[in-house]
């Protein structure tokens, strides 16, 4: 029963973090505002969750300039992709094992 409960990564417990990872899983890169719009959260809230995922090295940051405006884009790292895939598999296994 609890074979895979440990493989549910702590970083993905938050709904918002899971949302960020889901969006980045299907987009090469997303900027802050797009993420904010998809998730419907405040700036501060999103920033803190992004920082958390960055610390785990699950997402990376690419900074550039559009004209004079700084433009920050986020992408999923290899490590993040592996962790996210494992998380999905673990979820599926848990659902199957309870049937």
């Amino acid at each position, binding site marked *: 029963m609890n074979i895979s409960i440990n493989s549910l990564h702590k970083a993905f417990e938050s709904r918002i973090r899971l949302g960020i990872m*889901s969006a980045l899983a299907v987009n090469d890169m997303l900027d802050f505002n797009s993420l904010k719009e*998809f998730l419907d959260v405040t700036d501060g809230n999103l920033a803190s969750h992004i920082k958390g995922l960055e610390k785990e090295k699950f997402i990376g940051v690419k900074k550039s300039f559009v004209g004079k405006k700084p433009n920050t884009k986020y992408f999923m790292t290899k490590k993040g992709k592996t962790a996210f895939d494992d998380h999905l598999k673990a*979820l599926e296994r*848990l*659902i199957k094992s*309870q049937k």
Partner: protein
Amino acid sequence: MKEEQDYIRNLADIRSMMERSSKFLSLSGWAGIMAGVYALAGAWIAWKVFDFNPAETVYNVESETFPAALGNLVFLALLILILSLSTAVFLSIKRAEKKGENVWNPIAKRLLINLAVPLVAGGLLILILIGKGLIGLIAPCTLLFYGLALYNASKFTYEEVRTLGLIQVALGIISAWFVDYALLFWALGFGVVHIIYGIYMHYRYER
């Protein structure tokens, strides 16, 4: 320990976020229905009022013997295009507002670019066809390139758009063979198929 329900909801959340962040889901079925209605009206006007008959014009290579109504036909086709596009944009904006989303996002941009590449290529080819007097091939080309554009853009919106695109491509190819019936195929593709698609999408996603 979490319940099975939670895991299922978790997966559903992930799925919905992946869809919302990679697909443009504000297209309205009504846009398809209205585009179909405009196209049918346009085809009827071309046939009845302008007396357009592709069978007589297909081998008309001499530029002096252009059908007199050609200018009118091009104008009519552009009018249908503009009407259809503005209806689609207007309805998408309304639908996005209803869902509390912003219609102009990176996905909308990607969708438009993927639509535009085949459409612009087709448009240029059609201009060349007009210049060379190959009038009969215009209608098949509009179907063909429109279908390719839809097929190309379908990965950024509802998966049904892919089928719609394939149907238009098939109709375009068939009508290039049966050029005499090109206007009929055009009315079928842009008119009838759009309306059926629109009704299907409306019932499937908007109720």
